[in-house]
């Protein structure tokens, strides 16, 4: 079975006023279906760049990225958009919900770009909202909901298309502790129940602790990958 995400020696550099800045300097990782991984690092470590690459929002300067076994470098922008639509769900720190649009329509948006019919869209969006405990908030607009509720709407939106990977970028960053805990509990449960792989980008150790595997990023390189460390320890122990 192919990995949900597999990166091989990913590099990404930017041109800033003529100077080349390397945000990622060669990152390799493999995320299996159903895994729960936290990417941890201080700001400027390159973790956001990594997340954009993993989410196919950006293209690497060099290196390979395979999503469900599909190499993304060979895909056109249009195909990448379709790939995002079908296999990746995004949860952002600042929710990114459409204002003046009901929770139901916000959640149904990815299905619009998939060409799903209206009745089916509404049905699936409703079920996704129920799954995050917002069955009673279908017609509320973002401005009528708390931050925690808004982030739960965003999670429902990320899951409505049944992706294989959910990328969450500091999902608790704009929430207080109680709402943050609630959101993390939902992510824990979704990972356990639906088998969607979750990649969590954060700089908070307590949030990262929800993940079974942690990848520490610093200065554009992986500093520590607990999965590899465990394997190394196991192998070392066996020897």
């Amino acid at each position, binding site marked *: 079975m192919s990995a949900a995400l597999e990166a091989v020696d990913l590099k990404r550099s930017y041109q800033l006023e003529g100077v080349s800045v390397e945000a990622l300097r060669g990152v390799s990782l493999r995320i299996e279906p159903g895994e729960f991984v936290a990417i941890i690092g201080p700001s400027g470590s390159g973790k956001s760049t990594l997340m*954009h690459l993993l*989410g196919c*929002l*950006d293209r690497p300067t060099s290196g390979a990225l395979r999503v469900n076994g599909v190499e993304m470098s060979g895909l056109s*922008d*249009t195909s990448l*958009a*379709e790939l*995002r*639509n*079908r296999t990746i769900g*995004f949860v*952002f720190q600042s929710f*990114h919900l*459409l204002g*003046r*649009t009901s929770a139901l329509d916000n959640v149904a*948006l*990815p299905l*619009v*770009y*998939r*060409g799903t019919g209206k009745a089916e869209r509404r049905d699936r969006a409703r079920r996704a909202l129920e799954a995050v405990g917002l069955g009673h908030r279908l017609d509320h607009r973002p401005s009528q909901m708390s931050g925690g509720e808004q982030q739960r709407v965003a999670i429902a*939106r990320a899951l409505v*298309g049944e992706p294989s990977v959910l990328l969450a970028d500091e999902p608790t960053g704009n929430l207080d502790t109680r709402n943050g805990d609630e959101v993390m509990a939902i992510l824990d449960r979704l990972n356990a129940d639906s088998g969607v792989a979750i990649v969590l980008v954060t700089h908070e150790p307590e949030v990262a602790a929800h993940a079974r595997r942690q990848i520490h990023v610093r200065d554009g390189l992986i500093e520590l990958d607990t999965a590899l460390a465990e394997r190394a320890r196991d192998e070392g122990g066996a020897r």
Partner: protein
Amino acid sequence: MRAREAFFMALEALRVNRLRSVLTMLGVIIGVLAVVILVAIGSGAKNAIEREISGLGSNIILVVPGQLSVGAAPTQSRLSLSDAAFVRRVVGDPSKVTVSVQSGETVRVGRQEAFVTIVGTDENLPNIFQRPLDRGRYLTETDVDTRRRVTVLGAEVADQLFGDVDPVGRQITVSGARFRVVGVYTTVGATFGVARDKEVHVPVTTAQRLIGADRINGIAVGASGPDEIEPLQQKVVAALGERYPGERFSAVTQTQLLGTIGSVLGMLTGVLAAIAGISLLVGGVGVSNIMLVSVRERTREIGLRKALGARQRDVLTQFLIEAVLLTTIGGLLGILLGVGGALAIQAATPVPAAITWWSIALAFGVSVAVGVFFGVAPARRAGRLDPVVALRAE
């Protein structure tokens, strides 16, 4: 994404920014409104003049000395009654030729006064022009030959001088001479601003003595059919040219008048429509401007849509539809207001207005085209936004 979804998405975006949408539309609304109203007035004027000309009668050829120019009465005339007799011989049918000599005079009945146009003419007038009688009779050959002081009044003159009293058999005074009213015309309206209902017709011989001149202002010839007009016109002009070598005579037909006036007014209408079209163009620039602002404002939204799987063309379509909807709705409102305005102008003022389908279709088509033309650049910009950059935008 389905087209229907894109349509409703765009409509929703316009609804959310209602005031801005309406203000942006305003440019298009005013442009379309101006096109529709101005074209309606132009076409209305053309129709009215065409109606007036054909109201004169059918197959008329007007012969005047010198070069004819519309609206200017020829001042120096060398035509006389003997020329009219000559033209009668040329035409062959004397009853199809009539003459006219005109002078502005004050007429009196008791204390009632009216300033009128005295028209000296003959018994053949009704054979050529459409001048139905309301009561009484036309002038006769005997009236002309014996220089009788009889008159047929235009409807408005009769009303002014006699009111409800039947004027036939009564007398009016023109420059101290008494005339007996023998007939009254029905109302026929104005042609080229000549109030034909304010005319007082008298025998041409009587009129010449009254004015103190031998001249006549013009000769009118009635052709027997539309095909006869042009040959007859040439024949008459050529014959008069032979009779008076070195002088010019003009003969003008209704068709030629219609053609000349039609093309002048058509050009005028076109120019007006083009000027109005410029405001439509300015409205389009406004749409482009607002769409660019909208794209910038909604950069994060665009980034999000792309992250969720919107393709470049989905985003482009959404914004293009928004722009086209703006101008199309604006165009429809402009058409409604323009038609309403044209009808109101017609009802409230003497300006005639004719709403033409081509101007409405053109205005609508142009407003849709303006939306596409001015919407493409902002929509492309939206479609090409890099999702990573867009998501980070403030």
